[in-house]
């Protein structure tokens, strides 16, 4: 990781993909206005920085279950689980999933809490290319943990030509 990230405004960090925010993100990653953009590991790092602020991202506690090879990048099943107690005092506050080669780096952000029972999430995602997926767990004590998985994609999503 390079330079220290800029301090974020106080208060709840919102990752709502409002149209303005998305347009800004697209402007960063797009090369040509009329063609779909390509994210880069750099864009992913920027997003990770905006998630963790000044905290350190520690590897561990977070497991990604995803097929190492997928036939069709349009529907990739993914399960993220976080090894953590779930109590009022100690729980997973949020899970963020980011990618490095889709047109934009964000996949999903979920807010959990002490009632979650289990910090585990299953979703289906699109992958535009073979790449690494990273999941970040934000804990109630302010610490951040991460896990990654590599996926090989046979048929890309997002940027295929329509017939």
């Amino acid at each position, binding site marked *: 990781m390079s330079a220290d990230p800029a301090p974020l405004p106080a208060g709840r960090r919102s990752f709502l993909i409002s149209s303005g925010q998305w347009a800004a993100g697209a402007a960063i990653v797009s090369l040509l206005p009329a063609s779909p953009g390509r994210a880069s590991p750099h864009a992913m790092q920027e997003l990770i920085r905006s998630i963790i602020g000044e905290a350190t991202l520690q590897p561990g506690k977070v497991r990604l*279950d*995803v*097929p190492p*090879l*997928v036939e069709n990048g349009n*529907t990739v*099943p993914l399960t993220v689980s976080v090894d953590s107690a779930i109590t009022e005092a100690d729980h997973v506050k949020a899970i963020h999933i980011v990618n490095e080669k889709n047109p934009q780096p964000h996949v999903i952000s979920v807010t959990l809490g002490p009632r979650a029972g289990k910090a585990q999430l299953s979703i*289906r995602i699109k992958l535009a290319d073979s790449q690494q997926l990273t999941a970040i767990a934000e804990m109630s004590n302010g610490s951040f943990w991460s896990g990654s998985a590599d996926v090989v994609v046979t048929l890309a999503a997002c940027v295929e030509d329509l017939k």
Partner: protein
Amino acid sequence: MRPAVRFGIAAVLTSVAAMAADIPAPDRRSGYAMMSPELRAMQDDDAANPGMLSVLDGAALWQQAEGTAHKSCADCHGDAGKSMKGVAARYPAFDTTLDRPLDLEQRIDRCRTEHQQAKPLPFDSKELLALTVYVAHHSKGEPIAVAEDARTGPFIEAGRHIFEQRQGQLNLSCGQCHDENWASVSPARRSRRRIRPVIRSIGSNGSRSARCGGGCAIV
């Protein structure tokens, strides 16, 4: 070739594997067996299989009155759970009036025109897919049992001929990937050795098997 014959060939082409004399039945494999465990889990879980959304749509359409006859499927066929059980497994089936086989979509559209006095639904329309998947759902898990007899024989043979014929820029026949090289071809290819499960969920939508053929034919 008369259009009716061509239609009939198209109808049986997608299930010609059931008739293949060259691959013994015990050696046949459904594409399901070659899926990754995660995809199989998605297929198996009714809570996660997006094809189930189409089944729900189809269940609603089943009750909807259509056409100038203002009849719903239910008006003639009643509870699909009883009347449609095992039906999809027999399709494509020979239609004596038209003197050719019809696949399930064609059969549904025929019901629409003949009995509901409604316009046929376009192939690949969401509604026809929903009705087809709903009917097929009542044959879930059953082996496909298309009749092989004197009437369907000529259509099956013509279909086999097309299946084994090299064509296109790569000069490949369907059989070369799906029969001869099923073990070594990338997981994206499905073996035609056994029929896939009646609920098909390709990508995130249900899809007609004819689309798979169309996808391959692009090469």
